[in-house]
């Protein structure tokens, strides 16, 4: 009865080697102080922004008050006011909320498109793969920013939904490529063949067998995408082709800096929004990289 003993030690060893996914992530964050601080900071900012904005009314915040123009930061407006006499801090909170919400919405939509098409392409291969990947190649070489800008400026009755739509149309491709390449490798594993022989239909294998095994890299990618999407949205809004005027974004505040006078002498109007974007982007990226290391055993710190 020597064999079972050997087996048991093997089992114990493997138990030690493979703790649960959540534990790995926690350990990774504890090892990486920057990521931990980023996580705390990010969660703090997000909670603060969403809770504080509950008490804000967009129309109230964006109402022009000409007598309060360009007040410097002080007790009453502690980030000052803009050219319309509107409180910068309140706009910052609303802008952050809108930018985050829209960034998340675009990330979710592009993820669903990218994952669905990537899974189909990788799982089936052949002509399905060919059609999807040639489409991806084409979308990737399109001058996306310019086409979005043109669309925004010519579409009738432009609104937030249309903005999310046009953004989602262009930014699903990287996720699709990623999921496809991983699914391609995954489908060669025998558990997929096993599921087929057990009579499991293809769609179930894709959704319940293959997809869960890709979840960690998808989550990492979504985190990094969120930063990217917020960046693109605020960039476009900065140029005046992003969110419509009734939905202030962080880009809106920064766009006031296109007036050199504001840029040079009234930095309190735009600088906080710029810094908030920087902080958010950095936090998301450090979190994303810690998750990435947790997902990839070779890169783990601890």
């Amino acid at each position: 009865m020597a064999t079972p003993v050997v087996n048991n030690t093997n089992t114990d060893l493997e138990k030690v080697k493979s703790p649960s996914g959540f534990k790995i992530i926690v350990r990774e964050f504890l090892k990486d102080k920057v990521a931990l601080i980023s996580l705390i900071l990010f969660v703090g900012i997000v909670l603060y922004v969403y809770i504080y904005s509950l008490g804000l009314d967009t129309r109230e915040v964006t109402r022009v008050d000409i007598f309060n123009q360009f007040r410097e930061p002080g007790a009453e407006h502690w980030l000052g006011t803009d050219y319309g006499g509107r409180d910068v801090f309140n706009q910052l909170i609303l802008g952050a909320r809108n930018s985050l919400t829209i960034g998340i919405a675009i990330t979710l939509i592009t993820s669903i498109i990218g994952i669905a098409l990537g899974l189909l392409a990788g799982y089936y291969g052949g002509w399905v793969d060919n059609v999807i990947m040639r489409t991806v190649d084409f979308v990737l070489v399109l001058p996306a920013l310019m086409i979005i800008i043109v669309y925004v400026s010519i579409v009738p009755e432009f609104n937030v939904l249309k903005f999310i739509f046009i953004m989602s149309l262009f930014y699903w491709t990287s996720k699709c490529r990623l999921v496809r390449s991983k699914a391609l490798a995954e489908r060669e594993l025998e558990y997929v063949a096993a599921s087929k022989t057990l009579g499991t239909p293809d769609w179930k294998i894709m959704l319940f067998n293959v997809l869960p095994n890709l979840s960690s890299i998808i989550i990492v990618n979504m985190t990094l995408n969120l930063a990217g999407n917020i960046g693109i949205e605020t960039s476009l809004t900065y140029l005046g082709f992003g969110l419509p005027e009734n939905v202030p974004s962080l880009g809106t505040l920064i766009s006031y800096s296109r007036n050199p006078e504001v840029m040079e002498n009234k930095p309190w109007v735009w600088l906080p929004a710029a810094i908030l974007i920087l902080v958010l982007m950095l936090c998301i990226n450090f979190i994303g990289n810690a998750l990435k290391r947790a997902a990839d055993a070779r890169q783990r710190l601890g």
Partner: protein
Amino acid sequence: MLKFIIRRSLIAIPQLFLLSVLIFLLAQAMPGDALSGKFINSPNLDPAYQSELRDKLGLNDPWHEQYVRWIGNLVQGELGMSYVHNVKVETMLESRIANTFWLGLATLILTYLIAVPLGVIAGRLPDTNMDKFIVTYSYVSFSIPIFVFALIMLYIFGFTLDWFPTGGSVDVRTEPGSWDWYVSKLHHLLLPALSSALLATTSTIQYLRNEIIDTKLKDFVKTARAKGTPERKVYTRHIFRNSLLPVAAFLGYDIVYILSGSIFIEQIFSYPGLGQLFVDSIQQRDFAVVNVLVMLFGVLSILGTLLSDIILSIVDPRIRID
């Protein structure tokens, strides 16, 4: 090899065709047409005459005929008339193309000047503090939106420190062609190019770093060491030669990245290039110019990607796609 290049090039043809159709359809959806500019000075023109003119110009033909005519003109270099300024689009592009070209070139050079040494250092000394710093920088630079970074650069170095001019492509008081004129041009280029370059380094640094780390473990490097080749020579002769070449392949991708970034950079630094022209034209609803620019950027992006894919397939056969 040749087969791959030809096959990859053939993919670009349907891409170009689809791009042109897409832009043509966008153009159809845009308000205004080739006559809008002509009538701008005579708004009281008889509507009947207007429609007669439109007929004559073929603006009421079926769309596929219009498309063929449109693409024919584009290929022959006839880009049409600006709706707003009533001048040929070519004329409007001329000076701007040069400006964007120089800005792009300066950005590319700066990108490699920053990225290559950093990538080499990080790859040579992985897991040191220096390496950690460089890797962090490459992640950070990847995550910062270019317009925020450019704005802060402009605010600090342009407005606050006053080291660089805050707008334009050249000091208008200098004589074109003179030494001062060139110096002024370079002075205007430097800050926007640096802002763009500092963020464009990510892929080069990371690729170079990983490549060097991988190459170090290859057998031919071990052999070189075992033979007693001096450590410096191991790097210069064996490792860099193998790792640096693929970096050249990012040229095309970098061009595409820098071009799309130029829309923001030129706007922020009031630099009169194609990107700024695009934003201005959109704001003035000058869709004749907009169209040409989208087409131009699209073509450049297709060609840039093509270029990179081909170089990459030559220097790094692993990446060759079928």
